C-alpha cells in the first residue's frame, strides 16, 4: 500500500511539473519544439542512411601517414586553401561559408529563444560582444547575399561551361539552384527580423534589448518606417520563423543533396589517401601468385578461400573512402574543367564518375534496406536481385579515355580522387571480365612475351651498338 502511495506521489509531481512547464511555454514554443523534434528525427534517419551507404565500401587503410591530418583539415577544409586557385569563386564562396559558420552562433540563440519563448536570450549575457557578433553576421549576410546572386548568375545567366555540362542537366542543376534560393530566403528572413527589431528597440526597449545592427539599422527604417507596432511585431516574428523554417528545411534536405559537402569535406580531408599520388594500390593476391609462379618466396600468404573480385565492378568493391569522396562531391566541376579528355570532347567527365558512384551507392543502399538484413556488404549485395553495377552508370568509353594525368585530383578543393575509381574499374574490366580496349590486347601480349610495350624484332640493347 505504502508503495502505491509513493508511486502515486511521484506521478502526481511529474504531471504537476509537466503542467507547469506547458503553462510556462507559450504555444509558439510548443510548435517549435514539436517541429524541431520531427526535423531532427527525420534528418537523423536520412544522415544515417548516407552513413550506411558509405559503409557499403570495403575497408580502407588510411592510417599509413598519421602526421599532418589535423593540419590538412584546418588548411584545406576549414581554411579552403585549394579553393583559392580560382580567386573570384573562392572569395564569393568564402562570404557564404563564413556567414554560414557565424550564423551557427545565432542559431544556438534561436533554439534557446524557440524553446523558452525568450527574445535575444544571449544579449544581456554577452553585452557588447553580442552586438559585435550579430553585427558581424549582418555584414557577412549582406556579402553572402551578393555572392549568392553572383553564383546564381554564373549558373543561369553566364552559363559557365562547367555548370552546363551534360551530367548537370535536370536534377543536379535544380539541386544547385534550390540551395542558392534557400540562401536568399534565409537572408531575407534575417533582414526582415532584424529590420523590424531595430525599429522595435526604440518603441519597446524593455522587450527588445538594444543591439547595434549595422545593416538593418539602415534597411529597417528604409523598408518598414511608419508601420504600426503590431505590424512590426508580426514582421519580426515572421522573419524569425522564416529563418527557422529555412534552416529546418536545409537540415532535412542536406542528406539528399550535393550540398552535403559542408559536413563531409572535413572527414574527407582527414581520411585522405596516405599513398603518394604516383602509387596505385598494390594487389597482394596477384603479387603472391606471380611470385610463386616464379618460384620466389611469398612472405604473407594469407590466401582466402573465396575467389576475390579484382578491381571494382560495383560500389561494394570500392573502398569506403571512394564512397565518402562520392558523397562529398558538390559537383563544382573543377575536375572536369581541367580533364584533358573532357576538354577535347571525350565522354569522360571526372565529376560524372563521382556522381554516378554516389547515385549507384544510394540505389544499392535503398534496395538493401528492403531485403532482409545480412551480415556484411557483400552478402547484402548478393541478397539484392539487382542486375546493375557501376558499368550500368559509367560506360567503358569513359574509363578508357583517362590519361591518368591527375589533373582532376589536383583540382579538387576537398581531395576527392576520381582517378582511383577509374583505375579500379579498368582493373575489373581486365582481371574480372577479361576484356579491355582493343588496342591494349596486343600491348599486353608483347609485354608478357617480350617485356616491351611493342612487338619488336631486335634486341633491347641494339641501340647501344647502332
Amino acid at each position, binding site marked *: 500500500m505504502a508503495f502505491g502511495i509513493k508511486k502515486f506521489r511521484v506521478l502526481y509531481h511529474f504531471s504537476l511539473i509537466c503542467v507547469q512547464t506547458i503553462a510556462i511555454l507559450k504555444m509558439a514554443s510548443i510548435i517549435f519544439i514539436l517541429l524541431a523534434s520531427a526535423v531532427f528525427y527525420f534528418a537523423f534517419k536520412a544522415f544515417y542512411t548516407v552513413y550506411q551507404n558509405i559503409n557499403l565500401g570495403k575497408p580502407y587503410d588510411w592510417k599509413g601517414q598519421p602526421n599532418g591530418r589535423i593540419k590538412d583539415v584546418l588548411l584545406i577544409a576549414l581554411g579552403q586553401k585549394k579553393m583559392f586557385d580560382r580567386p573570384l569563386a573562392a572569395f564569393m564562396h568564402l562570404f557564404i561559408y563564413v556567414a554560414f559558420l557565424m550564423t551557427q552562433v545565432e542559431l544556438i540563440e534561436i533554439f534557446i529563444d524557440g524553446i523558452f519563448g525568450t527574445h535575444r536570450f544571449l544579449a544581456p549575457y554577452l553585452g557588447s560582444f553580442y552586438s559585435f557578433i550579430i553585427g558581424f553576421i549582418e555584414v557577412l549576410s549582406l556579402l553572402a547575399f551578393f555572392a549568392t546572386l553572383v553564383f546564381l548568375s554564373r549558373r543561369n545567366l553566364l552559363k559557365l561551361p562547367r555548370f552546363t555540362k551534360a551530367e548537370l542537366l535536370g536534377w543536379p542543376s535544380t539541386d544547385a539552384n534550390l540551395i542558392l534560393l534557400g540562401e536568399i530566403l534565409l537572408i531575407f528572413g534575417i533582414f526582415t527580423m532584424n529590420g523590424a527589431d531595430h525599429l522595435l528597440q526604440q518603441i519597446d526597449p524593455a522587450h527588445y534589448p538594444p543591439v547595434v545592427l549595422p545593416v538593418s539599422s539602415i534597411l529597417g527604417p528604409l523598408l518598414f518606417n511608419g508601420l504600426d507596432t503590431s505590424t512590426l511585431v508580426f514582421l519580426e516574428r515572421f522573419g524569425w520563423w522564416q529563418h527557422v523554417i529555412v534552416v529546418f528545411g536545409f537540415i532535412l534536405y542536406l542528406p539528399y543533396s550535393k550540398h552535403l559537402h559542408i559536413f563531409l569535406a572535413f572527414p574527407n580531408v582527414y581520411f585522405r589517401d596516405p599513398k603518394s*599520388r604516383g602509387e596505385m594500390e598494390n594487389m597482394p593476391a596477384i603479387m603472391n601468385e606471380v611470385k610463386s609462379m616464379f618460384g620466389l618466396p611469398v612472405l604473407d600468404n594469407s590466401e582466402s578461400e573465396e575467389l576475390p573480385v579484382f578491381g571494382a565492378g560495383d560500389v561494394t568493391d570500392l573502398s569506403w573512402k571512394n564512397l565518402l569522396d562520392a558523397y562529398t562531391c558538390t559537383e563544382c566541376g573543377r575536375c572536369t574543367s581541367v580533364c584533358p*579528355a573532357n576538354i*577535347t570532347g571525350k565522354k569522360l567527365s571526372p565529376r560524372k564518375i563521382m556522381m554516378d558512384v554516389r547515385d549507384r551507392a544510394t540505389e544499392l543502399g535503398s534496395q538493401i534496406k528492403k531485403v532482409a538484413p545480412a551480415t556484411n556488404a557483400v552478402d547484402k549485395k548478393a541478397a539484392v536481385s539487382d542486375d546493375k553495377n557501376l558499368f550500368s552508370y559509367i560506360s567503358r568509353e569513359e574509363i578508357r579515355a583517362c590519361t591518368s594525368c591527375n589533373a582532376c585530383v589536383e583540382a579538387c578543393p576537398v581531395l576527392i580522387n576520381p582517378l582511383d575509381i577509374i583505375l579500379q574499374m579498368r582493373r575489373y574490366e581486365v582481371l574480372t571480365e577479361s576484356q579491355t580496349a582493343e588496342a591494349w590486347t596486343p600491348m599486353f601480349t608483347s609485354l608478357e612475351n617480350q617485356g616491351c610495350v611493342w612487338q619488336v624484332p631486335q634486341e633491347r640493347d641494339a641501340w647501344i651498338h647502332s
Partner: protein
Amino acid sequence: MIKTMSEFAASGQQPEVLYWVGCAGSFDARAQKVAKAFCQILDHVGIQYAVLGQEEKCTGDPARRAGNEFVFQMLAIQNIETLNNYNIKSIVTACPHCFNTLKNEYPALGGNYHVVHHSQYLQQLLDSGRLKVEGGSFKGKKITYHDSCYLGRINGEYTAPRELITTLDADLTEMKRSKANGLCCGAGGAQMFKEDEAGDKRINTERAEEAVATGAEAIAANCPWCITMLTDGLKAMDKQDSVMVYDISELILQNI
C-alpha cells in the same frame, strides 16, 4: 662507351648509377637519340654508369594503368629480381613513367632504390660543379617547357628542368597551363598505345597549339611519350619545321 650491368659485374665493379633506359629509349628511334644524348653527357662528365641491356624489361606502368595487374606484377617482379641481384642502389631514368613506377610502386613489391629523373640528375651534376654548361646556342631564344604529368603533378618536380633551361640563357616562356595546372600530352595511362576515344580533338593537338601560341621556337620536354605526342601535334598543325621538340638532355648536350 655504354657498358651493361653484367659487364660491370663480370669485372667485379659497381657503377655509380644505373641508367634505366625504358622501352622508348631502347626501341623508339626518336627516344634512342635522347638516350644517346644523355649517355654522352654522362660520358662527358665522367660518370661510371651501367644499363641493364637485355635484362631490362618494361617497368609495367602501361599494363598497370590499363588495368592489367597480372602483367604488371610479372614485369615488376622480374625487374626487381634483376636489380636486387646486382645490388642496385641508385637509378636514373629519362622516362617519367619509369621514374614514377620504380620510385613509388616498386617498394611495395620489395624493390627499394634511390630513383631520380634525368632532369634532377643533371641539375645535381650542375649544382655540384661536375657539369658545366656554356650557354650560347639558345641564348635569347624563346623556349617553352612542357611539364609531363608523371614528373610534375604526380611527383612535384617543376624546378629542376626549368633551372636547366635557365642555364642556357634562353628565354623561358610558360604556356597558359603549366606546372600543377599543366595539360597532359595525351599519352599517359596507356593512351600512348591506343587511339583516342571519340571526341572533338586529339589531346596532343590541344597541347601543341598551346605551345605554339607562346611563340617559342622550341619545346623542351622530359618524357619520350610527350616528345612523340607533341611532335605529332605540331605535324597536325604543319609546324614541325618551325617549332622543334627537344628533351632537356639534348638542350644541355648542345651547350657543353
